[in-house]
């Protein structure tokens, strides 16, 4: 099982690019981190999601003080 943004998902063995394509994240607006390491866009190809991985997909939101 892979934990993605706090949700446990059954995507073990899936390619990161396939996961992103199947999800509805808007291209170009997010960053992916796997096990606290940033995955650069140019490295998405070839990344496989493994059982036990923790994935964070983040974007900019409003924020201030």
């Amino acid at each position: 099982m892979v934990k993605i943004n706090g949700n446990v998902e059954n995507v073990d063995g899936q390619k990161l690019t396939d996961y992103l394509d199947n999800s509805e994240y808007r291209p170009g607006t997010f960053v992916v981190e796997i096990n606290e390491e940033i995955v650069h866009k140019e490295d998405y190809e070839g990344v496989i999601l493994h059982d036990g991985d923790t994935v964070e997909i983040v974007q900019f939101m409003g924020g201030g003080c």
Partner: protein
Amino acid sequence: MEENKDTFKLGDKEFTSRFILGSGKYSMNLIKAAVENGGAQIVTLSVRRANTKEHENILDYVPEGVTILPNTSGARNAKEAVRIARMARELGCGNFVKIEIMGDTKYLFPDNNETIKATEELAKEGFVVLPYMFPDLYAARALKEAGAAAVMPLAAPIGSNKGLAAKQFIQVLIDEMDIPVIVDAGIGKPSQACEAMEMGATAVMANTAVATAEDIPMMAGAFKSAIEAGRKAHLAGLGRVLERGASASDPLTGFLRD
């Protein structure tokens, strides 16, 4: 002095506007008008888990040419702040970062010790680091030593709109620090922003005061005017205050009596 020559620098960027605007707590479609009315050249954003359901992105609403200042809100220690800052940079809007580290959930006071640690790490990694801090001179010096491009002392608890509660301590930072002092958090109305500028602050940041106003773009405009007025007053040099008594401004001769 020509007005547009009165600039300040953060990293290698030069700014003429001394109003930094936050983008939290209000709807995205008002951001553009608030930025434009406020004349803000720097806007802060946060980094959060992406939402697949909403396809609109806040960057669509920030006018072109505005410098994005991501914050590390949500971080409870230096390690988490560094992690968020790296993600923010990866999002591709430059290398500015506002460090916000809050361990306390009631008062949301910034943790100066952790902030110094994060500043050191991120400055080494090439970030332009703007740390939100509790106004303490030793911490401000340590932040500068750690590579901060400015310090951002709080005026009052974040989001409180209580104004310059920490006025005396902010004045110490303004007087003693030779990096920009940007007054952040707690500024609740334009007159308080004006006062901070009169004191010699380099710039003022506001969010909640604008976001909770009835007319958000108009309030952004009011802050712009206040900050410009305060800056001019500072440059002009404030008139003196008498210890006691009065001092006539009119001639003391030629009265219509013998």
